[in-house]
Structure formats: structure tokens, C-alpha cells
């Protein structure tokens, strides 16, 4: 299964909606995700992929709008955490960072 599909499944489970509704462009705030939902989603991702996402509750409350993740990309820019696709990109980035180059 592609990472994006796992991400969709985890988000869908936390928000109690069908995974089919989620495309990479779907915004979490449009799904009604609140701060505690985001924290639960992040926990699900960490458990599933054995990664650590250094996100705080204060960030989570902003994330559902236009917040950032606390994760920086290779260019040192904060990666967004607004859409399902954003979340999948962060997961891919953290998984890649685990594998020795």
C-alpha cells in the first residue's frame, strides 16, 4: 500500500469518515479536524511508520488553518500540514530520514 493510502486511512479513522472522501488536496480544517484530532492523527502516523513528529498542541490548534508542522524540508523550510497530501509528504520525508544514506 502506498504511504498516501495509509495516511488517508489513519486520518479517516480519527475523523470517523470514509477514506474515499480524502484526496491529496483535501484540507483537514474542511473536515472539521480540531486540535485533539490532529494530535490523534499524528500519534497514529508515529505508531504506523515508527517515526517521531515533533508537533506541540499549540501548533496543532493552528495547523487546521494554515499552520506548519515543525518539520523542515531539505531546503530548511517549514513543511505545511494543511492537506492530506502535506501530511503524506511529511511522513515520506521522515521515513527517508530513517534510512541510512
Amino acid at each position, binding site marked *: 500500500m502506498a504511504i498516501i493510502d495509509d495516511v488517508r486511512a489513519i486520518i479517516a479513522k480519527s475523523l470517523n469518515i470514509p477514506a474515499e472522501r480524502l484526496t491529496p488536496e483535501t484540507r483537514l480544517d474542511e473536515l472539521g479536524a*480540531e486540535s485533539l484530532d490532529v*494530535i490523534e492523527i*499524528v*500519534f497514529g502516523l508515529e505508531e504506523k511508520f515508527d517515526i517521531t513528529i515533533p508537533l506541540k*498542541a499549540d501548533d*496543532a*490548534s493552528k495547523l487546521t488553518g494554515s499552520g506548519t508542522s515543525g518539520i523542515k524540508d531539505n531546503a530548511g523550510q517549514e513543511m505545511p500540514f494543511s492537506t492530506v497530501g502535506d501530511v503524506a509528504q511529511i511522513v515520506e520525508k521522515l521515513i527517508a530520514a530513517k534510512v541510512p544514506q
Partner: protein
Amino acid sequence: MNRVVVTGIGVVSPIGSTSEKFWSGLVEARSGIGPITTIPTERLNTKIAAEVRDFDPAQHFDPKRQGLLDRFAQFAVVAARAAVQDAKLELIEEIAQQAATIVGNGAGGMNTLDDSFWRLYGQNATRAHPLTIPRLMANAACSQVSMDLGLKGPTFTIASACSSGTHAIGQAFQMVRSGQVPLALAGGTEACITVGTIKGWEALRVMSTDTCRPFSRTRTGLVLGEGAAMFVLEPRERAMARGAPIYAELLGFGMSADANDITAIDPDGAARAMRSALADAKVNGEDIDYVNAHGTGTALNDKGETAALHKAFGASAEHLAVSSSKGVLGHSLGAAGALEFAATALTLHHQIIPPTANFEEADPDCDLDYVPNTARNAPVLTAMSSSFAFGGLNAVLVLGRA
């Protein structure tokens, strides 16, 4: 209706376990937050807490009794004994038969629970210690205080997370005020600095890893604390007749529920509890000189609490002195409201406002006078102590100078 006064204060706290040490630590902003020493921290991201470091149970309990008491019950009993002694109270049987014991704690014997489950699941032990349940039950602290002092009236535990201590004192206040009981021992206790509990708090992503900076723009979250505070509450007339020390008078108690979010503060709900306490005390917002805030040091609480103060006090909010004790005491959950009630009663007694410790810079979202870092000599006739719990349960007390 009786007028109700505080005649005895007993504390067990991260900055000392006499009310003198407690008060000087608050006034000097001497933070009790430091590296965790009582549990292994290898598996924790959070390596700091406000622990009670000078507490040796063997000084207070014989070995048999000590084995019956989880740390949260030890704290409560020691604080209750100190409160009775401080009140110069002789518990005659006529009073003890009817006296209430009301203790607030958010959890129960978490050290006992953590140890027992570690043995069962981590070490495959086949049996639990026979005192596991009597030690960890949520009412253990309350029952142990009642047994220790021989108090035989209404006795129960209130669990409303971070408002537990404030709810307990408020409930006791109402019972003494109405004449239902002639005296009450009330307060709060908590001792949940365990690997399991901290893991749970870490998962909520609200923990600071450096220190607690209430209302400061640079705040990074809360720091767990532990401790207990217990009080003797009695009718003013009897206290005066027996020449008891009187620290403060309890004037009003207000409660509300947000019925909204399970973790986030709701300024409307918090403001309703404040207004209800003011109405119960029959005082106006502009008469309040000092507010001991809930002030946890999380971005959301401190912003929401500031908004609540504006809603409840209107234009007079800008004249309030507001401080949080959590930069010094950490957040001791069910004990927090009780320790902060002690801080508020001592503010009225000493006429000194304790500061908000670790305050670095102003936040546009927190635009009140937070008495940053330095205590203030100021007349305080009426004060408020507020607690806002997870679950949206709010409790607020109003006190007056004795």
C-alpha cells in the same frame, strides 16, 4: 449563614513543606522546577518537574502505616496535620464527630498503580501486593486524613482534574457556611510524577521541556508538579471566640461547565464561573485587587484565561493584579487549586502580591498586569483564585482580608 474563615494552612510543596518556606518561595519567585529525581527518565522526553524533594515519609509515619499510604495520601495527611496544628485546633470529640473532610485529587495513587502494573506487565509478576487497591483508590487520601485525625462527619473525594482542590474547598466552604458542619478540613493533593503519567501528558503535546513561563510570549507549555495543601475552615465567630489565627475570610464560590471541548479552555465558561463567584461573594469586579490565575503556561490556556478575565471584569480588568504560581509550583493538577488557594490566603494575610515567575516578555494576547518576576507590596482587600480543568470544569473562589 455563618461567615467562614481560614484558620489553618498546611502545605507540602516543591518549594518547601512549611507554610513559611512555601510563602517565601512564592514571594522570591524561587522555582521548584528542576531535573526529575524520583523516577527513571531514560524513556521520557520530559526530564523536568516540580517535585517535592524534601519529603521523607519515614519522618511522618511508622513503617506499617507508611506501607498503607501512596505518596498522594502521605502528602494529604501531612498537610492536614500541619493545618490543624497551625490553627491551634484541639479536635474535641463533639466537633470531630461532625467535621467534614473533603479532598480534591485528579487521579489517585498513581505511584502504586504504575509500580503494580509494571510488575504485572513488565516483569510478569503473578500477583499484586495486597495493599494495591487500598493505596491507589481515588478516595484513599481523604479516608487517610479522616482516619489520622479522627474526623467522622461528611467525608469524600472530589475529582475534577485541575479544579479538584478548588471544588473541594468550595464545597467545604458551603457546608460550614450553611451550618451543616461545624468545621471542615479541605484541600487537594496529587502525586503523579510517574513514567506512565508523564508519557500520557507527553502524548497530549502540551509539556514544556525547559520551564513554565505563564503569560509570557515565550511560554512553551506546562510542567507537572506535585504536592498538597489542606485547610481548616470554621465559622468566624467560633474562630474569634477561641482566639484562632485567621488568615482570610471565604466570601464566595462559583462553578461552571463549558460543555464544549474536552481539553481547550472556553473563555465564556471560565468567565461565568468568575461572575458566579463574585455574585456569591456579593462583591463587584472592581473590588477585586488580586487574581491568582490558573496560568498553566500553555499558549491556549493563558490566552483563553486572559480573554475570560476581560469578559468577567470588563473595563476593571486592566486594574487587576494577576499572577500565576505555576512558574514556581509547576502544575500539580488536583492539588493546584489548593496550593494556589494557600497562596491567595497568604497574599491577603501578608499584603504582598506574589509574582509570576519566569516571565520574559509580554504577549499581545495576554495584555493584563501579571506582576512579572518581582513581588509587590500592595493593599489587597479582596482576591480571587481560579481553576479551569480538562473536561471544561471551572471553579473559582473569592476571599477577603480577615
